[in-house]
C-alpha cells in the first residue's frame, strides 16, 4: 500500500509548546481523523506538513517525496485551514478567477456546481457571508482542482448538522477513488465515527493513539461500577478512570476479554468523545 503522507521524527518547538516527535503514516485511500483538545497540536501538525511553519527536525514525505517548499505537487493537494483565509472583499466569482490562474487543473464547472449545491451567492463579497458559508466556500475551493489529497483543519466547524452531513458525504465520495486521501482534524468527534478509517489522537503534542476506527471502537470500552466495586477491578485493566456521582467510569482495552472476566459488570461501547475525554481528563 502506498502512503500519501509519511511523517518521521517530526519536531516543532515553541517557547511553551513542543510538537513531537511525531511518526505517522497515512496510506492512500484512507480518511484519517485527527482528534485532540484545543492546543493539543493538531493545527501545528497540519501546518508543518504544509510547510506553513518550519519543522525543527524530521521529515515529511508527500506522495513518496520529501515535501518541498515550492512544489508543483501542491496542485494535487486541497487545503482548508482553521481560520477564514479568503480576502473578505472578494466574491466567489473572484475566487474562481484567481484559482483558475493558480491551479493547473482548476475545474470551473465543478466549482460552480459546488457553489450551487451549497447555496452560496456567486456575486456577494465574502464579508457578507456567515461563518458556515465561508467554510463551504473554502471546502468547494479545496475540492475544485481535482486534488488527490485533502488536508482539512476543522472543515466542519461552524456548519449546521444538515450541511455537515452533506460535506461528510462529499468526503466519502471523494475517497472512493483509491488514490484519494483525506486528513482532517475536528473536535466534532461524531463526524469521524461515520467517515474516518483511522483515528489519530494527539495530546500535548504527541500521538497517543493511532488506530483503525473499527478496531478502536471495538477494542475500547467503558466499564461502569459503583464506588464499592471499584476495588475489585485490577489496576492493570484500568487505562483511565473518572469518578462521578454514582460511581466510576473506567476506560478499558480488550473489551471482549474483559467482558468475560468482569461478567457481572456493565461494559458499554465507547464513543470517540468519551474516549477523548477519559484519555485527557481521566485519572490513571
Amino acid at each position, binding site marked *: 500500500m502506498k502512503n500519501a503522507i509519511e511523517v518521521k521524527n517530526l519536531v516543532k518547538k515553541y517557547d511553551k509548546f513542543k510538537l513531537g516527535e511525531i511518526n505517522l503514516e497515512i496510506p492512500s485511500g484512507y480518511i484519517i481523523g485527527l482528534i485532540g483538545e484545543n492546543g493539543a497540536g493538531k493545527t501545528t501538525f497540519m*501546518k508543518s506538513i*504544509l510547510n506553513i511553519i518550519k519543522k525543527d527536525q524530521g521529515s515529511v514525505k508527500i506522495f513518496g517525496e520529501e515535501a518541498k517548499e*515550492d512544489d508543483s505537487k501542491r*496542485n494535487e493537494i486541497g*487545503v482548508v485551514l482553521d481560520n477564514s483565509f479568503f*480576502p473578505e472583499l472578494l466574491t466567489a466569482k473572484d475566487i474562481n478567477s*484567481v484559482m483558475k490562474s*493558480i491551479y493547473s487543473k482548476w475545474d470551473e464547472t465543478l466549482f460552480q456546481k459546488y457553489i450551487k449545491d451549497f447555496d452560496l451567492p456567486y456575486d456577494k463579497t465574502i464579508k457578507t457571508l456567515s461563518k458556515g458559508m465561508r467554510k463551504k466556500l473554502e471546502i468547494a475551493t479545496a475540492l475544485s482542482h481535482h486534488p488527490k489529497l485533502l488536508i482539512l483543519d476543522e472543515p466542519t466547524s461552524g456548519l449546521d448538522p444538515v450541511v455537515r452531513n452533506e460535506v461528510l458525504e462529499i468526503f466519502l465520495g471523494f475517497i472512493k477513488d483509491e488514490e484519494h486521501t483525506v486528513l482532517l482534524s475536528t473536535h466534532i468527534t461524531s463526524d469521524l465515527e461515520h467517515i474516518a478509517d483511522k483515528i489519530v489522537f494527539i495530546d500535548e503534542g504527541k500521538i497517543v493513539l493511532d488506530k483503525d476506527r473499527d478496531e478502536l471502537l471495538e477494542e475500547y470500552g467503558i466499564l461502569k461500577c459503583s464506588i464499592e466495586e471499584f476495588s475489585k477491578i485490577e489496576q492493570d485493566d484500568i487505562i483511565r478512570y473518572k469518578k462521578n456521582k454514582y460511581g466510576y467510569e473506567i476506560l478499558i482495552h480488550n473489551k471482549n476479554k474483559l467482558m468475560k472476566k468482569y461478567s457481572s459488570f456493565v461494559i458499554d461501547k465507547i464513543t470517540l468523545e468519551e474516549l477523548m475525554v477519559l484519555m485527557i481528563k481521566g485519572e490513571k
Partner: protein
Amino acid sequence: MLGLIKKDLFLIKGNLKATGIILIVFIGLAIFGNINLAFLPVFISFVLFMSTFSYDEYNKWDSYAITLPNGRNNVVKAKYATTLILLVVSTVIVTILSILLGVVKNEFDIKEIISATIGSIVAIILLISITYPIIFKFGNEKGRIAMFIIIFLSSSIFAFLFKSVKISKDMISLLEQYGVFAFIILSIILLFGSYQLSKNIYQKKEF
C-alpha cells in the same frame, strides 16, 4: 503568480471609488490652484496597494497562499509585479492628465511633466524597495511606520541639502545630463535587491 496578482487587483477594485474621488479633488486643485499632479496620484496608488497587505494580514491569507503551488515565491513575486503594474498604469493616467491640464491652462511644458513623472516614479520605487522587505519581515503595521519615517527623513534631508549646500551651476547641468539615467539605474538596482531580500525573508517566515 497571475492568480495572486488578480487577487490583489480584485482587492484594489473595492477601493477604486475612494481613489477616484481623491483623484478628482487633486485635479480640481491642479486646475484652480497651483499644484503638480505628478506625485500625489501615483503615491495614492501605492497607498492603495499597501492596503492589500493589511487585508492579507487581517484575513490570514498568507498561510493559505503558501499552500498553493509555488506558494512562497509567488506571493513575493506577485506583490512586486502588481505594484509595478499599478505604477505603470497610474503613471500613464497621470501623465495624460498632466498634458491635458497643461493644454487647458495653456502652460504646456513637456519637460517639466517628464521630470516630475520620473521623479515620482523614482521616489515611489525607493519607498517600495525599503518598505516591502520590512512588511514581509515585521508585518504591515511596522511597514507603515517605516514608510512614514522614510518619507519624513528623506524630505527633511532634501530640504536641508537644498538650504545648506550651495548647488553650483556645474552640478545642476551635470544632474540634468546624467541624473535621470543614474536615478533610473539606481532605482532598478534597488528594486531588484529589495525583491531578492523580500524573497529570502519570506522563505523563512512562519504563519
